[in-house]
């Protein structure tokens, strides 16, 4: 039986405290890229009771995604935006979502991201990561960007860290391990990096700005 919205909110308030939970509930987070990073970030934030998630990805769920991304076999072929929204709603039925099944680039980023308070860069491609980070810092200087670089392979989990590069710019990862080197991405290490990103989002919301 699905709890009522009041029961749902009360359980979060009991856990996080009403003051923090109200802040979490009033925050909109954009998740740019719904692969191993983005799908895990979204699940963490949905469980924490985030107010609204913007889910952005052009791609469809593929069999090669399932070793690290939060989709299911029966979702192969679905757009990642719709598949992830369905999965998130099963976790948190009162989550508000807005989906954009598009390739985010410099021509559409300002329109798409204008309502977001905090932007998570969760792309796979290094050039796209740099493009979005530069775009947000140059064009949307009031927003926070939480980006990721370096989480491939089986190197130590302890090498994954969060660094505050500047006032609005946080970077998670080991900053070294390229997906092209070695064995590619492994679910546990990608989840670690995604958890750093999601946790940084919650710390920003809680006004804990240092890492």
């Amino acid at each position, binding site marked *: 039986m699905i709890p009522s919205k009041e029961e749902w909110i009360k359980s979060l308030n009991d856990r996080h405290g009403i003051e923090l939970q109200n802040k979490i509930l009033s925050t909109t987070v954009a998740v740019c*890229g719904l*692969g*191993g*990073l*983005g799908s895990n970030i979204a699940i963490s934030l949905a469980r924490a009771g985030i107010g609204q998630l913007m889910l952005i990805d052009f791609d469809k769920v593929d069999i090669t995604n399932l070793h690290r991304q939060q989709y299911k076999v029966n979702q192969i072929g679905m757009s990642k935006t719709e598949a992830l929204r369905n999965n998130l709603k099963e976790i948190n039925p009162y989550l508000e979502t807005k989906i954009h099944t598009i390739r985010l680039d410099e021509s559409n980023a300002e329109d798409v991201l204008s309502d977001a308070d905090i932007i998570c860069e*969760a*792309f*796979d*491609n*290094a*050039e796209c*990561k*740099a493009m979005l*980070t*530069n775009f947000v*810092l*140059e064009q949307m*200087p009031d927003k926070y960007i939480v*980006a*990721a*670089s*370096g*989480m*491939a392979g089986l190197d130590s989990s302890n090498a994954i860290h969060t660094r505050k*590069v*500047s*006032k609005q*710019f946080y*970077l998670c990862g080991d*900053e*070294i*391990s*390229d*997906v*092209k080197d070695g064995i*590619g*991405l492994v679910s546990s290490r*990608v989840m670690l990096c995604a958890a750093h990103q999601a946790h940084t989002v919650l710390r920003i919301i809680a006004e804990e700005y240092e890492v």
Partner: protein
Amino acid sequence: MVRINGENLDVVGNSVAEYLDSAGYDLMRVAVELNGNIVPKAQYADTIFKDGDSVEVVSFVGGG
């Protein structure tokens, strides 16, 4: 001296573009902060390092 990613380097008078090129960075993969502010990509050639500047070059690698 200019402090770049925690290291003091003698690059006063160099542009951001010159430094990134000489250090072997891929311009399509970087974000550059100068004294806590982003350097717009269009200004890499015209932004000249001064003595005491503090610079962070973030060079992204793939995977996500």
